[in-house]
């Protein structure tokens, strides 16, 4: 009797383990199935390279959304990575235990704050601040810069946590060897610890990028959601970041609830592009982590 229960349970457990694969399969199936008409009628290349998004008139260019997603991710990396790396090195190598006990939970809580709250904070505090700081015609405050700042804070915990782990995983003997040779702690960090943790740190940044590309609600709330291609507002090319934009994620969320027919297919096509983009990014991080682990 006990043997029979044991055998039965094994299959039930096996089936529950299969559930996650089944879900992945369903996600792929349904997203691709709905997206297929768009890809078949318009073609992959025109969708990826077109700059005009008018789904009602069968114009499905999402290049401006791809550009929006990439630019805001780039901005968040530029702003967030130095801070996140500083935080990671601080937590792993410099902070006294008491301070670490304060900073680490703070970083964890940053990861737990809902994205709508970041979006709300961005709308109420950041957007007016960005609007008033840069008096360029056409700068509404709802733009790539505000979105990049919000996103930088959102990816900060991801990068800090993984990079800290990578730095901690550097064997003690590396550091001791360096210190024994008379290097200061800072020299040891810069020339021994960080290079040794390099693949983990790069993986942390790439995973941060994946997180940034997938963020939806906070982006809708601060980026302006214009379907036009982002571009500089005046002769200074840096005003590009004061331009409104729309992300791939935002494109889906803003329009899906009222889209029908071909328009809906177009949004699923946007989802497929986003999915592939994120899988490539996450996959490369995974490769790096595995390569780092093997050494």
């Amino acid at each position: 009797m006990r043997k029979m229960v044991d055998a039965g349970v094994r299959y039930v457990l096996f089936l529950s383990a299969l559930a996650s694969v089944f879900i992945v399969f369903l996600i792929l199936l349904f997203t691709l199935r709905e997206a297929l008409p768009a890809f078949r009628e318009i073609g992959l290349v025109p969708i990826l390279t077109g700059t005009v998004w008018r789904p009602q008139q069968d114009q499905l260019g999402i290049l401006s959304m791809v550009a929006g997603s990439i630019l805001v991710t780039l901005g968040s990396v530029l702003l967030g990575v130095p801070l996140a790396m500083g935080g990671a090195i601080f937590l792993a190598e410099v902070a006294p235990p008491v301070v670490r006990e304060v900073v680490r939970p703070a970083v964890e809580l940053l990861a737990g704050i809902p994205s709508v709250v970041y979006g709300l904070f961005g709308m109420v505090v950041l957007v007016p601040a960005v609007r008033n700081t840069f008096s360029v015609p056409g700068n509404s405050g709802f733009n790539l810069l505000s979105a990049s700042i919000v996103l930088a804070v959102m990816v900060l915990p991801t990068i800090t946590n993984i990079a800290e782990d990578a730095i901690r995983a550097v064997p003690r003997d590396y550091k001791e060897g360096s210190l024994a040779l008379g290097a200061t702690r800072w020299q040891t960090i810069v020339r021994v610890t960080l290079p040794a943790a390099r693949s983990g740190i790069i993986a942390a940044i790439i995973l941060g990028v994946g997180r940034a590309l997938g963020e939806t609600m906070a982006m809708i709330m601060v980026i302006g959601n214009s379907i036009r291609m982002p571009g500089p507002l005046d002769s200074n090319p840096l005003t590009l970041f004061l331009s409104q934009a729309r992300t791939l994620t935002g494109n889906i969320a803003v329009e899906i609830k009222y889209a029908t027919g071909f328009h809906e297919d177009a949004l699923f096509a946007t989802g497929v592009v986003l999915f592939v983009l994120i899988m490539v990014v996450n996959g490369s991080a995974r490769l790096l982590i595995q390569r780092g682990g093997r050494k």
Partner: protein
Amino acid sequence: MSDGAAGPKTMTREDATFATLVRLAPSREDARPRRKVGLARRQLVQKAAFGLLWLSGIAAVAILLSVVGYVVVQGAKVLNWEFLTTPPAGGLSASDVGGMSTTIVSTVYLVFWTIVIAGPLGVMAAIYLVEYAEEMEGRTGLIPVLVSVVRFGVEILAGVPSIIFGLFGYALFVSATALGWSFSLRSAAVTGACLVLPVIIRASEEAIKAVPRSYREASLALGATKWQTAWKVVLPAAAPGIITGIVLSVGRVISETAVFFVTFGGTVRAPDSVFDLTSPGRSMALHVYYLAMETRAFDKAMGTGAVLILTIILINLLMNVVSRRLASKLKGR
């Protein structure tokens, strides 16, 4: 790790240590005579650098305090018992009147169902992956291949952005072309369960892996079957980690917006009861979004946001306390 030089992959750790030290340390020193970079100077550089590191550590705390502080202080202006207990009035566009009571109720229902669905499924999957899949290692055949596919699947699922889950839920559950459940508690709960499943599987897997081998061996030696061992010995020992994973998922569901934006609907009226699975609703996070984007009622949005943040902080605290208490209790046994 070395840039151009085709470093042999069989390098031992000691070799790597040595190579790193040799490559990195002396080359720079050779460029400048050693005397010039005196200890005092190097220590000065270190002080400056450490100063910056301290600043970034402090910045993380400062960012947290300013976001949380701002939302809570602004939210406190509208927060009172009445705000918590009156439903939002009006329709989609006029919900700047009234409070947030129905959104709390909807959130609770949503959390309940996502965990009821994803919790057992995730824990059972984790038991299989740790306790049963191990014996497949090195074997060939269909099941071992499936096991590695499952691991890969969990990996992928954990990286899928939430709006893709939303899109999938919309296509499979909401849309009339498939199941046709429209915007409802059941559409939202099942999609939400898919979202948190990898979180629960991973946390449970870690927790089950951490149970010492000797526990299992002792149980098996007493004649218990594999399942009896897993159910009566391994699971209780892994409980703190599993509960932590589940509480983490509760937090995830409470803060998730994108998925429920496209599956839960957004009506201010809550489902009649937790079993009213076919009614749409609006979670607290969704309420913040609608208030900010549709009605521009920023004061109420801040109030709801404050409740949301305080709930998340409470959950984090609870998680720490529970896992610590359970861990110490088990250790004491």
